[in-house]
């Protein structure tokens, strides 16, 4: 333990610890794949692997420099992959960030150590270096953690495109190359000769890289949120527009129906043969069906139900409704149309995929329980349901639209202080909504 440290070459262990801390930082803020104890054991295993790989591989020749760095990146990536529950592209992005953060806190802590040995406060002993590295790096990691915590969980599950990913890889490669240029050759415009220069260049460029990726990350997540908001707004507009079109046509049918009823009564009052009267009676009972359909006590709901049952009929699905629509009379038209429009559209999309026609059933209930409105929508489904942020996404439908419908329903339910839960068992899918009735 008394051996002196070679001050120009940064020991592998310092970087191994830095990479590891950075990886742990990004794991801690994301959704994990395993429980606490498994995670602790996995982390220890990866710490040993990283320290082992970097110490054994030290010092590294110029030829092996880049391949060994790629190996370390791979180990960090693997560590994140086994621990974080996110798509592979996002893991790649976090790996890049962890690598740069690791580079930065590694070189910064080493630079500080180097500086303090020069000023005679410390002697350059290995054990001092270890204590110093652990303290300094932990402090830097904590600062990074604070910066990282401003992102919410659902922002982390952003959609990472290939282009974003390639950009990230290019940024990281350049940052790394420039920061380490002095080690490969002292004779370039960006290299330094003296130890202080080398350290300064490296730390500053790494700092720039960390900041750049952080900014890039903010940009991606903000773009994602904006995209989602505009998607939700479009959906909202669409449901309202649908509702207005349906309302017009249904109103027209109703108008015609009333006219017809009127004509029939006039014709009946005229003296006709008994056969004609019978015929008129028959017409009367037949059109009665149109009158009675979907009278729930709420006009907006009636219109939506009529439209959706026509869609259902077109592919032999059955929409059965027992609903006290009057419970919704205090709701805004837009809210009713988004909520039920989206709920029923989702159910329709889902039962459409069922090959057996007799299984295409959609059942809607709206009822009151004490001071609560209960809404329940049930339908069978085929295949399996995947969840993203607690929302089900169907595997077969359009990649971009899934989940948004329910998300907008969720927003409406939230607006009324209610609860929305999703339950899927025995091939039945059930959405349950409860909204307190305000005094």
């Amino acid at each position, binding site marked *: 333990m008394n051996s002196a440290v070679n001050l120009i070459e940064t020991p592998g262990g310092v970087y191994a610890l830095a990479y590891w801390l950075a990886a742990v930082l990004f794991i801690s803020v994301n959704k994990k794949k395993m429980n606490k104890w498994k995670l602790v054991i996995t982390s220890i295993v990866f710490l040993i692997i990283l320290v082992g790989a970097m110490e054994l591989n030290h010092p590294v020749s110029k030829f092996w420099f880049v391949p060994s760095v790629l190996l370390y990146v791979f180990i960090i990536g693997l560590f994140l992959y086994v621990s974080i529950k996110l798509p592979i592209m996002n893991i790649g992005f976090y790996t890049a960030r962890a690598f740069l953060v690791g580079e930065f806190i590694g070189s910064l802590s080493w630079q500080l150590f180097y500086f303090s040995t020069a000023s005679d406060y410390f002697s350059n002993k290995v054990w001092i270096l270890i204590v110093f590295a652990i303290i300094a790096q932990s402090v830097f990691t904590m600062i990074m953690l604070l910066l990282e915590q401003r992102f919410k969980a659902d922002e982390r599950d952003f959609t990472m495109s290939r282009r974003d990913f390639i950009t990230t890889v290019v940024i990281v490669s350049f940052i790394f190359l420039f920061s380490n240029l002095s080690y490969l050759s002292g004779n370039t415009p960006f290299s330094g000769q003296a130890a202080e220069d080398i350290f300064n260049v490296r730390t500053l460029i790494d700092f720039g890289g960390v900041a750049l990726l952080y900014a890039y990350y903010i940009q991606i997540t903000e773009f994602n949120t904006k995209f989602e908001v505009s998607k939700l707004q479009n959906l909202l507009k669409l449901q309202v527009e649908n509702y207005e079109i349906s309302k017009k046509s249904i109103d027209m049918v109703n108008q015609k129906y009333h006219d017809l009823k009127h004509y029939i009564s006039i014709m009946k009052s005229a003296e006709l043969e008994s056969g004609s009267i019978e015929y008129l009676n028959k017409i009367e009972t037949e059109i009665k069906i149109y009158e009675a359909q979907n*009278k729930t006590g709420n006009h907006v709901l009636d219109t939506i139900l009529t439209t959706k049952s026509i869609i259902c009929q077109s592919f032999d699905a*059955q929409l059965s409704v027992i609903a006290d629509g009057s419970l919704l009379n205090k709701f805004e038209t837009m809210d009713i149309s988004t909520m039920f429009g989206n709920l029923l559209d989702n159910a329709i999309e889902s039962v459409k995929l069922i090959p057996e026609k007799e299984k295409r059933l959609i059942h809607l209930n*709206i*009822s009151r329980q004490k*001071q609560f409105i*209960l809404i329940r929508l049930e339908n069978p489904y085929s295949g399996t349901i995947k969840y993203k942020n607690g929302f089900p996404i169907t595997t077969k439908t359009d990649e971009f639209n899934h989940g948004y419908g329910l998300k907008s329903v969720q927003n409406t339910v939230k607006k009324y202080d209610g609860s929305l839960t999703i339950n899927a068992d*025995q091939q039945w899918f059930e959405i349950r909504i*409860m909204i*307190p009735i305000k005094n």
Partner: protein
Amino acid sequence: MIRIAIVEDDKNYIIELKNLLSKYEQESNQKLIITVFEDGEDIVTNYKADYDIILMDIEMHFMDGMTAATKIREKDSEVVLIFITNMPQYVMEGYKVDALDYVLKPLSYFALSQRIVRAIGRMKNRSISYISVMISNGVQKIDISKIYYIEVQNHDVIFHTINGIYTTKLSLRVLEKRLENESFFRCHKSFIVNLAYVDSIQNNDININNQIVQVSRGRKKEFVDALNNYFNEVSK
């Protein structure tokens, strides 16, 4: 064993329903006991709460299904009512008699059997369970289903029940463990409520039998979700 009543005036539908039910009996390995009534009036006269499920036709000669259902509900709040109809518009008001299900004619085996499966799933488990606690003058046996809510004050646990208030000393951990599979929810550090008695929520106030219990902000979402699920599981 599931006791089912069929109320239907059309002989052909009675035969069809019986066939579908016996198919279900074989597939599900459940014993069904089926009673047939040919009019709403027949089942309503001398009605005894003897059935788990009633399959009710809507259009019948003497007494229609909705009227019969209303009369049945006056005497039996537990039975599951499922309407069988070819006129869905007439069952829209089924919610008035706590009937949230119907099956359309012409009948399909899938639709009928699935509604019965759902109904069985929602049938109340009527077993009564008790919790025995030490009170000042001995041991008190408390019917868990009759607890409104439980209050925790310092080291005292206070049971607010239909039959009165009981104070005891009990570890919260033990208590929560005991109530795990019951309809209870810890909505605050000092309150555990029986979801069955929650009448309303206004902001962070829960009204239980005209008493106000607080829900803490951090547990509000979980609480409303639990209540939502509870209502769904007990509704017919």
